[in-house]
């Protein structure tokens, strides 16, 4: 099963590498590379030619007419229903997560609720996965493994005892500035057969974790009626619980209190009962994030750029040449894979009335990506001005990988572009 983690991780490598692997031909004829053979008997030779310019030429004996792959009515109605309803679904979810009031779709918890009732809006068909971003970057900077702490955590009543889940991986993840990103506790059970497969995960964070993930699908039944979205909202003791997933899918329950953001997840083989029992334990034993709020001193070095002048070399604008004065330039280094590496930088600079902050993080979540305007070479004055018109900061991606944030605390888009140009 562990090698399957490698297989899965390989699945999301660079698009360029994946497609370049289609060019494996010793002839060096790059105009007509073969990208694969179909085992379809209708294909006379099953070969398509994939040219380097990205065009595809079907085999001359195989001029198939365009076919309708959605031969079932249900599929056709998926398409017709999806467009107008996706937006509504997403809007509803966003409103609920932001605590923007109740809607008629919220059910109220009772102690007679069955486990499956938490997921009453779920469908029961396989949902296709979607591919994630082709740019891969961690969401955090520094990892603190807690695998050796299972027994101590159980004895302290911080985590449940799950005796038949002998595999586990526990970790705390910190941002480069030393703040807590999230905690992840995973229990695993493997056996000879698929029926014994289980993965139960508990996650906790100071604020909602938003990582790039699958989109929401909308379904309709054969009659064209819309099947309610598979997010079920339950209110329990004044707290909103979002349940997502279904049978034969991963399932999650997510809730937020004044203590933090929490989520439990079960695998496609974990039943509704399994995940609710897991959830109920954490509901009854509220997790205290404050125990992990401070990164251990031995995991981080807080220093200055003067001490580490090569940190993030090439990724910090040459502000001195533009007449700026550095108010402060801080660098954090962390233990990453056994080596000490820069994980965070923050510089504050002034020039007259203008005040700029340049921050670099080696982790990025969905919010960071949402504010990303590209690599320095991709940024134009127009793009930057447009991005800064509604906010004071933008994110800029570097292939380290890392994400820089340019914050114009006081100044103009012209000032910002002048700074970006030093990196182009």
């Amino acid at each position: 099963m562990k090698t399957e983690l490698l297989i899965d991780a390989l699945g999301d490598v660079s698009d360029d590498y994946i497609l370049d692997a289609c060019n494996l031909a010793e002839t060096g004829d790059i105009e007509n590379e073969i990208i694969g053979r179909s085992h379809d008997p209708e294909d006379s030779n099953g070969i398509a030619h994939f040219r380097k310019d990205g065009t595809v030429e079907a085999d001359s004996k195989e001029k198939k007419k365009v076919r309708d792959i959605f031969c079932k009515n249900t599929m056709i109605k998926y398409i017709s229903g999806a467009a107008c309803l996706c937006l509504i679904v997403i809007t509803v979810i966003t409103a609920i997560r932001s605590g923007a009031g109740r809607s008629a779709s919220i059910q109220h918890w009772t102690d007679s609720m069955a486990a499956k009732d938490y997921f009453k809006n779920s469908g029961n068909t396989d949902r296709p996965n979607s591919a994630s971003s082709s740019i891969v970057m961690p969401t955090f900077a520094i990892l603190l493994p807690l695998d050796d702490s299972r027994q101590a955590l159980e004895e302290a009543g911080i985590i449940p005892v799950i005796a038949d889940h002998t595999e586990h991986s526990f970790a705390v993840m910190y941002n480069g500035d030393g703040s807590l990103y999230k905690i992840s506790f995973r229990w695993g059970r493997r056996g000879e057969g698929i029926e014994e497969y289980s993965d139960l995960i508990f996650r906790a964070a100071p604020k909602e974790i938003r990582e790039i993930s699958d989109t929401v699908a909308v379904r309709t039944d054969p009659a064209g009626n819309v099947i309610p979205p598979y997010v079920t909202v339950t209110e329990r003791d004044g707290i909103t619980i979002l349940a997502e997933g279904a049978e034969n899918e991963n399932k999650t329950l997510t809730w937020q209190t004044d203590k933090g953001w929490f989520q439990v997840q079960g695998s496609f083989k974990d039943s509704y009962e399994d995940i609710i029992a897991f959830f109920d334990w954490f509901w009854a034993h509220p997790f205290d994030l404050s125990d992990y709020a401070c990164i251990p001193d031995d995991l981080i070095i807080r220093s200055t750029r003067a001490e580490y002048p090569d940190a993030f070399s090439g990724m910090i604008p040459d502000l001195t040449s533009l007449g700026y004065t550095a108010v402060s330039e801080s660098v954090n280094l962390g233990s990453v894979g056994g080596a000490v590496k820069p994980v965070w930088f923050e510089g504050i600079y002034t020039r007259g009335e203008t005040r700029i902050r340049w921050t670099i993080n080696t982790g990025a979540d969905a919010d960071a990506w949402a504010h990303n305007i590209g690599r320095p070479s991709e940024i134009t004055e127009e793009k930057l001005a447009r991005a800064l018109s509604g906010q004071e900061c933008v994110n800029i991606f570097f292939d380290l990988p890392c994400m820089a944030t340019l914050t114009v605390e006081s100044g103009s888009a012209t000032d910002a572009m002048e700074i970006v140009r030093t990196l182009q």
Partner: protein
Amino acid sequence: MDDSRIIGLFNERNETAITEAESKYRRYCLSIADNILHDREDAAECVNDAFFGAWNSIPPHAPENLAAFLGKITRNLSLKKWRERSASKRGGGNVSVSLDELEECLPSGHSVEEYIETKELTAVINSFLGTLPETERRVFLRRYWYFDSIDDICTRSGFGKSKVKMMLKRTRDKLRAALEKEGIFI
């Protein structure tokens, strides 16, 4: 039709996006699914689901490369189906062989608990792939991304069997060293 126009059709929720994408990439996706599943019907089902998945994903996803995007969805779905079919036993097939070979990449001397998210591991593997000579990287990905058989790789590349096997072994050793260097144990 070029990819940017096809993606435009997806964004407009125009159903011809699927037929255009299929016309261009169905065979590519089928080859990926077939390598994993060795079952025409299952492979076709996964490919159908992949195009449906693309329909559900674009927007908001805006793939930089449509072929790779569809290929990844197909691969994910095919692997999921393969796991559901054969989790109880590993008998033959390219995926089983690839898994066995990749065992060598796992650093030894540590317990098998996994404390790394897949995304972080992907980042390390991406960096590692960037260090490889072009041909070695292509062979590695044909084997462990596309699940080509050794014979298929030989046919594609013109290399002999022993050369391909030697190349893969060398790359696996390098990957193992790269994972150890990053302190990644899975």
